[in-house]
């Protein structure tokens, strides 16, 4: 009984919190959640944790991510106590994003981009947690990853972390401008651009010296473009304002429209950011060292249908 009543009070509190806050100035909790919503957009949680292709409920997981290591199915991160993260504490959440460890102490596969999220500040992580807790719970059991044999042992991830994972929040570079640092924080910690745009080694680690240079082995079989400012193979011909616009509208300087995964990243996340934040990301990305690296497939012959049948 008592439990049921507490729940009712909590629910009522949730329902009425927003209008009340709007009327009387936001409470600290609401403000934190609001900040969390911004982090949530910048970090692109929705895109991977929602199975939009099959009309899945927001954040209930089940979105398939095909990679060279097998297919990962993202987990439910709604506050459902049984199938989601409803029983987690804030500490559990911080540890998951900062260290890539589950509440039970298991390693997460780095398909969950904690090597980037670890760069988020404590404050942003707490804000994100406050926001996620307010989302509607969805009961939907997690689907097991379908991995190739060599990637199945989670202990393998422990060794992987020793090689490729350096936990800890982003530390601003004092020699660079505030805008540059803001852009670096958003790109590296939140938007995790490098998780897709940087090629990986055979062991799935980020290839050094190839930051943002693109790859033919992107998730979902995609070819991920080189976004370093190399003029020939990257986006060195783009102006910062054009890149910032692209991050908002998805339209490239030559009038093409983003598709596939990048359209998802823009539609569910980047377009909600403040203009100056998109400008900061653009300024940062275009300040990086250019890497000449073409990801286009050379001389692929067209295949006729009959050859498959």
């Amino acid at each position, binding site marked *: 009984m008592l439990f049921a009543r507490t729940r009712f009070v909590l629910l009522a509190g949730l329902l009425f919190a927003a209008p009340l806050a709007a009327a009387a100035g936001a409470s600290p909790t609401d403000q934190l959640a609001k900040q969390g919503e911004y982090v949530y957009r910048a970090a692109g949680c929705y895109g991977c944790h929602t199975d939009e292709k099959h009309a899945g409920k927001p954040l209930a997981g089940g979105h398939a991510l095909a990679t060279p290591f097998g297919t990962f199915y993202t987990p439910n991160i709604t506050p459902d106590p049984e199938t989601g993260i409803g029983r987690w504490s804030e500490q559990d959440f911080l540890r998951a994003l900062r260290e890539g460890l589950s509440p039970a102490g298991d390693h997460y596969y780095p398909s969950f981009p904690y090597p980037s999220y670890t760069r988020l500040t404590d404050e942003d992580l707490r804000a994100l947690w406050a926001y996620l807790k307010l989302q509607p719970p969805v009961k939907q059991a997690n689907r097991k990853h379908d991995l190739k044999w060599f990637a199945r042992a989670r202990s393998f991830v422990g060794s992987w972390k020793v090689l490729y994972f350096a936990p800890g929040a982003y530390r601003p570079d004092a020699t660079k401008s505030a805008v540059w640092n803001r852009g670096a924080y958003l790109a590296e910690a939140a938007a995790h651009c490098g998780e897709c745009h940087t090629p990986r080694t055979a062991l799935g680690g980020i290839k050094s010296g190839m930051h943002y240079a693109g790859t033919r082995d*992107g998730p979902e*079989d*995609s*070819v*991920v*473009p080189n976004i370093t400012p190399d003029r020939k193979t990257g986006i060195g011909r783009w102006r910062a304002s054009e890149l910032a616009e692209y991050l908002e*509208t*998805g*339209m*490239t*300087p*030559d*009038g*093409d*429209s*983003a*598709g*596939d*995964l*990048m*359209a*998802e990243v*823009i*539609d569910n996340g980047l377009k909600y950011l403040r203009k100056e934040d998109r400008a900061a990301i653009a300024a940062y990305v275009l300040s990086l060292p250019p890497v000449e690296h073409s*990801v*286009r*497939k050379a001389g*692929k012959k*067209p*295949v*006729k*249908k009959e050859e*498959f049948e």
Partner: protein
Amino acid sequence: MKHPRICQRILFASVCLVAGVAFAAEPEDIIKYRQSVMKANGAHMAAAGAIINGKVDFKGQLGDHAKALQAINKDINSLFPKDSDFGETKALDAVWKNSADFQKRAKDSAQKADALTKTVAAGDSKNYAARFKELSDSCKACHKDFRKEEK
């Protein structure tokens, strides 16, 4: 007039040949044609965008770009006939599998391009940017579900 029947036959054969080529276009050629049309689509988007966003001052040309966009987007679906799904294409199988959805998207682009053209023709410059953005969003929405990035 010496060999009227031979002349007739040659004429008939050449008509058949031309018609045959027209009806059985190679899938690769259809794909290339489609890509050319889409490239033109993008180029007019870029040109119109530059004018609408005030980067360049070719206002007199905006109507032409809008009309070109209207013409190109009239029936995008027709650029994707059956059997043009193999070869150097980024079109996903979904174009043909979820054909109803795809047609809906194509129609949406046609409507958005129409609306832009009308707004420009009416000189309603306050709404250029909004109509343009709606068309650009329509392109993106379709690419999101139906185009693979560089497969």
